[in-house]
């Protein structure tokens, strides 16, 4: 049986209570909205992209602890990263939460490794990845709202 503490790790609860980079930057030049119609989670992701590098990244929205913490930690992780690096980290993150990644190599994900517990809760994978899908849409310049369904 999955242990709840594996899912609701202290770091995740902390980012849920005090989300980082939860704001709307005036100078963002990339933006997208994401929506999970299943649970009503909403997130907007704002990026200032300069020369292919994420100079600033922030989000706003309402959602469960998993989706809020994921958005918060995503912004912390990706600031200063290149577009290609961000895409690669998203891929790794997705592998992690869907259980495709090997347990032994969480190094590249750094703090994001705390989301490993999500793999035992398939219904929650969409919560963990909503902000990431929305970021991808923002970087690709898509105007459509990203929906998880």
């Amino acid at each position, binding site marked *: 049986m999955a242990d*709840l503490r594996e*899912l609701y790790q202290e770091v995740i609860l902390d980012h849920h209570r005090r989300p980082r980079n939860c704001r709307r930057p005036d100078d963002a030049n990339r933006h997208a909205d994401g929506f999970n119609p299943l649970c009503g989670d909403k997130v907007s992701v704002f990026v200032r992209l300069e020369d292919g590098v994420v100079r600033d990244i922030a989000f706003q929205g309402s959602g469960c602890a998993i989706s809020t913490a994921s958005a918060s930690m995503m912004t912390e992780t990706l600031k200063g990263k290149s577009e290609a690096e961000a895409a690669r980290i998203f891929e790794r993150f997705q592998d992690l939460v869907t259980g495709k990644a090997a347990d032994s190599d969480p190094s590249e994900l750094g703090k994001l490794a705390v989301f490993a517990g999500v793999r035992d809760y398939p219904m929650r994978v969409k919560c963990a990845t909503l902000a990431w899908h929305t970021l991808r849409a923002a970087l690709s310049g898509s105007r459509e709202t990203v929906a998880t369904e």
Partner: protein
Amino acid sequence: MKTADMTAGSQTRPAIDTEAIRRDFPALNQRVYGKPLVYLDNAATTQKPQVVMDALIGFYTRDCANIHRGVHLLSERATRAYEAARAKVRRFIHAADEKEIVFVRGATEAINLVAQSFARPRIGAGDEILISAMEHHSNIVPWQILCEQTGARLSVIPMNQRGELLMDAYEGLLGPRTRLVAVAHVSNALGTLNPVRRIVELAHRREVPVLLDGAQAVPHARVDVTELDCDFYAFSGHKMYGPTGVGILHGKMAHFEAMPPYQGGGDMISSVTFEKTTYNRIPYKFEAGTPNIAGGIALGAAIDYLEGIGMDRIATHERDLLQYATGVLAKLPKVRLIGTAAEKAAVLSFVVEGVHAHDVGTILDQEGIAIRTGHHCAQPVMDFFHVPATARASLAFYNTREEIDALAAGLRKVSEVFS
């Protein structure tokens, strides 16, 4: 045609013995994550008693044949069983005639049928359809589609903070352009039991027909469509302990006679040539194609089962349970009920302060407690109460006080995790 009212006199019978009842529902007797299953998601779908599953298997094992067409014995048996189920439905909801009972896929299809076959031909640009602020999406979207097709408008009866319809506002909204009123008998998201008798009466004074969405009412209390005098009554089999994929549209005969078919196909015709087709008589006119025969028969078995227990006893048990659960949740400081109408069915929608409903649902699930979280297909209701989502415990007659206590313990665990 008329049969005795099976529920009459049942109030004097003893209270429900849940321990015995629960043995009829195999799915209830299982453990999830090593804990006994506490199933509190009955407004989404109910569990099925063994007799319903026996009816499904019995049909496919012995009587499997198409209905209304074969001369052979199996077809005759299947037809008889299917029509017997129709008769049971008529008796169960106290309809005047079996011709008023149309088998559909569920309440959703029933409402779409009324929108397209009844309302569409008699509605035009500037006309109004009146629904309420607490409708399920299935009683909103079919009308929006109709409005797009015809240029009609949707008006909404408002509600108060307890989740009760404002009847004065309703009277004011009933205008010369109102062509139909469509309202939930019981709200799935809030549990509110609406004053539908009065709603019908006020509409009829202006000769406006009324559709009632009874999906959340039929499983929990005695429903008498003749007494309600509604024009249409829609409900689903799977929310009343029957199988999925079958439901009922009840409609007044005069309406059914006047309405064009909903879909074309086999079984809904009496003769077809390439020049002209004559439609079958009601209710078959609305039942194109091979229906969910096994589902219909099993729905009949569910009705037999419910009548055996007695709808009045079911209502009494659930009322008691609702009262108990409301008291238990009120003692939890961080839990706030959404939907506190004076007249309620056993639905408890709530939010936990500082915790999203989805997290509540996951933690309760780990305790073996199944509830619904989200917008309950009623996004306008969530918007009204300014919440993104709620957690919802919806009770059935097989639920017990011990299960409510388990819910409370689970909610204390939620507070612990998020402390």
